[in-house]
């Protein structure tokens, strides 16, 4: 999936080719007038990246899908407040990140109320086999959700610290330090795997 994302790096998405930008702007204006098929085009263009952002925060597939659906629904309802001069992707990713963080918080509260033996493992991917992948998942799971969001938004999605700060509602400096610590933890996980 991310190979596909990398074929549209953020530098392109921030200033996409003219026709892409014009298309997107037209879709947004039509969607703001209530055209659901235009909103459908926006969904099609952004759902992959939205999924990656959500997945990084909630870690499991089901919750990532829930967060993405919630986020697009929220975006549709809030579309009249979106100014077309903004970057739609950044605006949407802020909604996705908040939906995913909210889901994580609700899950934490729910799990705290449940008995330990009924707590579901967040890792239910049946394709789990690769030891490195598992180790990285474990390292990611140990990171606070916000740090996970920051490292994915920065290193995978290519956003700048200031943009991430705005998306997550944190100071730019906090985004910097979150990224620093998240990277260190992941490098540790990878490093220990390589040294074994």
């Amino acid at each position: 999936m991310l190979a596909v994302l990398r074929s549209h790096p953020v530098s392109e998405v921030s200033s996409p080719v003219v026709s892409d930008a014009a298309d997107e702007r037209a879709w947004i204006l039509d969607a703001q007038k209530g055209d659901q098929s235009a909103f459908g085009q926006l969904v099609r263009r952004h759902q992959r990246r939205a999924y990656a952002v959500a997945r990084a925060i909630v870690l499991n597939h089901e919750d990532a899908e829930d967060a993405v659906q919630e986020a697009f629904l929220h975006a549709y309802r809030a579309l009249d407040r979106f100014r077309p001069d903004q970057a739609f992707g950044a605006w949407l990713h802020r909604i996705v990140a908040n939906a995913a963080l909210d889901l994580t918080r609700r899950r934490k509260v729910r799990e705290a109320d449940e008995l330990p033996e009924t707590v579901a493992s967040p890792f239910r991917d049946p394709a789990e086999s690769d030891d490195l992948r598992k180790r990285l998942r474990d390292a990611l799971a140990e990171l606070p959700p916000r740090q996970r969001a920051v490292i994915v938004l920065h290193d995978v999605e290519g956003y700048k610290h200031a943009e991430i700060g705005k998306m997550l509602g944190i100071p730019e400096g906090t985004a910097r330090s979150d990224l620093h610590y998240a990277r260190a933890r992941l490098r540790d996980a990878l490093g220990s795997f390589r040294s074994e």
Partner: protein
Amino acid sequence: MGKELQFPDVTPDPRVVAALEPVLAPAQDTPAYWDGLHRRIMARVADAGAIAWWSISPAAARAGLVAAGLAILALGALALQTRELNNRLAVDAMAETELEVARVIPGIDEPLAVPARR
């Protein structure tokens, strides 16, 4: 020391990014999967759109609240004005009645003579 210096904006570690890829990918990264997700999202959007015909936008709600507030103020002012007018009419009517009674029954408005004590 500023955070820029403390945590310089170094380029992403390609090892970390490469390792993150499979972790962030859905179990089935196929066109069918994305079509399915798109359909589910749009079904929820359609549901939201279906109830939107009777719901009102925040802008319309704000305008409605302002209009309602102005209407309440206008009604209040009108009610005050009406009450004042009614009071004035009542006082005028009472005064006119007293004058009429005094005309018809002379001496009615004079104080009653107190009977002398024995």
